[in-house]
């Protein structure tokens, strides 16, 4: 027989046999997946940031449909996303509060001293492992940008030697929170706009020696802040984000200018004093 015909018949035959096998497999071996999972996955933003704690949006969708996992874990999607999914599945969404990351340090290179010259790889954990970091303050932001590098949406920039989060871009995935060797980054309600930007647990005189804008534990803010919205943790004022802090007077009263309102930079605060 003509070799062309032989090969055509052979390949065609294999093709037909495989198609038949696949058709049988489709009928008897197919895995039945809830069609709602694909729909829910489509409703999620598709950022695959992992902020919900699951391996990407598809995995989270599977968990929502199969295991009744809380709908409100998706930070990038926010309330709209949760409500859409809730309406689709006929479940209650619950309240979602949009959260953003914030770096609790305002001691940039104009305010905080560096005690040594660090000459090594640009990574905060590596700098921290070298004699405990070059920043004189043992709590402050080192500014080597490990958080900025893990941010999936480029919401973090290093400004004057410390990390700043752009609230508008942040999707609260929490990657920066995990990577910061000094544990300075927290996820807070986006509605909150007054923050205590210091994490130093040292006593006032020690803080003053190393940073011009660190919390000295004077407690003045606790008197002006709304009831319970700023509490003392030893020598450090800490904002309690479960309570609303609206009284802007605390910003002006803080003698070391570490309580700041969003949008107000270092220079503006200094001018106001």
């Amino acid at each position, binding site marked *: 027989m003509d070799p062309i015909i032989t090969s055509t018949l052979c390949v065609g035959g294999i093709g037909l046999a495989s198609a038949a096998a696949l058709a049988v497999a489709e009928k008897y071996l197919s895995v039945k997946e809830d069609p709602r999972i694909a729909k829910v996955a489509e409703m999620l933003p598709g950022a695959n940031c992992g902020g919900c704690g699951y391996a990407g949006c598809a995995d989270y969708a599977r968990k929502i449909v199969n295991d009744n996992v809380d709908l409100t874990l998706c930070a990038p999607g926010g309330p709209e996303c949760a409500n859409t999914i809730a309406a689709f599945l006929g479940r209650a969404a619950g309240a979602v509060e949009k959260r953003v990351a914030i770096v609790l340090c305002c001691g940039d290179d104009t305010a905080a001293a560096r*005690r*040594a*010259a660090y*000459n*090594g*790889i640009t*990574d905060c*954990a*590596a700098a*921290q*492992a*070298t*004699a*405990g*970091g*070059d920043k004189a303050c*043992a709590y402050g932001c080192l500014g080597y940008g490990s958080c900025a590098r893990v941010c999936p949406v480029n919401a973090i920039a290093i400004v004057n030697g410390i990390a700043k989060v752009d609230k508008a871009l942040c999707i609260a995935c929490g990657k920066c929170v995990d990577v910061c060797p000094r544990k300075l980054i927290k996820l807070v309600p986006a509605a909150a706009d007054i923050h205590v930007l210091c994490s130093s647990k040292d006593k006032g005189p020690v803080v003053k020696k190393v940073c011009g804008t660190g919390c000295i534990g004077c407690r003045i803010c606790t008197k002006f802040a709304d009831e319970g919205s700023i509490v003392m943790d030893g020598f450090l004022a800490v904002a309690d984000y479960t309570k609303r802090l609206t009284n802007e007077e605390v910003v002006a009263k803080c003698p070391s200018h570490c309580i700041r309102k969003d949008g107000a930079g270092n220079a503006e605060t200094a001018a106001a004093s």
Partner: protein
Amino acid sequence: MTTIRSPHTFRGGIHPAYNKDLAAGAAIRELPTPARLTVPMSQHLGAPAKPVVKAGDMIKAGQLIGEQNGFISAAVHAPAGGKVAAIDSAVTASGRACAAVVIETDGSAERQAMPALTEWRGVDRKELSARVGEAGVVGMGGAGFPTRVKLSPPSDKPIDTVILNGAECEPYLTSDHRMMVERAREIRDGAEIIRHILGAKCLRVAIEDNKPDAIAAIEQAFADMDGDVAVAVLKTSYPQGSEKQQIYSVTGREVPRGGLPMDVGCVVENVSTAFAVWDAVVNGEPLTRRVISVTGDAVAGPSNLLAPCGTLYADLVAACGGIKGKAAKIISGGPMMGFAVGSLDVPTGKTASGLLLLSAGKVTCFTSQACISCGRCVDACPMRLAPAELSQFIEADDIGGAEGIALMDCIECGSCAFVCPARRPLVQHMRRGKAAVMARRAAAKRG
């Protein structure tokens, strides 16, 4: 007792400027007890000791102030008598903070020690190694591995060779050198105790050939020792003092990957550790002080000081005539494997063999560049790794990839970074990568 010129030497390694002449001639000088000691609870590898005194307690020199907290841990004793001012936190040379007992010394001569034991030959081996543990003796070469653990190998790992490490391959450092010259007799007795505890037949003292006076002193002190005893004269090369490299240089045996010296029947102990073992067993004295070289071109009078553990670096420098000119870099330990420190408010510990102050002229400020694939680091690596490739994996955050090409076998000796013409901080990359692997393993363990 013989002297042998070792026929082997490890592959790779480097020849940095040794600069030992700064302090090599300076006899060991005892530092008067400072008024205030900050004794860290973590002066060893493993879990930090648990403080057993509280603020306000009156304590005697030699009293237990931190008890051993786990299997890989060591006890800490008071270097001097006085009042406990506080249980504070101190940043040690490695940059990590740990609990520290702050003592206001009162200058009293009263000491508390275990009863002396001159007739140790008849004593049970287990009892002797327990005594070494009770005295808080740890490896004094730098890693600080508890000696008690090294002296009790499992019964299926017989030890036939004890190597006393007197190589001191780190540039600048001279503390072990001076110990061998001035305390050879005690080191000999300590070595005999270690050999007895381990039941080893063979004893080698490994010394690099750039220390002829130490070789002569050790030869003389060990002359009357019976059995298979020899001084192994090693080629001067860095890192000849590293455990695995030294075992190869002395015995020709290779420690298997991921294995320990005991897998090839060896135990390596630093010469200063042998001294501490002698002091603990014979005199009952806990390990509370050590010889530290304070050297470098920014020190007015480079010295070898016998200082209590917990002395601040500032006190050591003051005892050496202060800083000459301006110190640009302060390193705890030697220039190859030491830790750069940010200030002189750091306390010494059992593992602190040197304090190095360098002027700006001796310090290079570098900018890390891209790897030019020259392969010099591969030639220099004594562990036969490929540092260039490892560092690129780590830079790309591919920690699994780095682990796959034996990242965890890196001994952080710094040979690769020393020879790198692109000035890549290779050791820092390795340390970062190793920390990431350890963190991942710990996370996997937690589940």
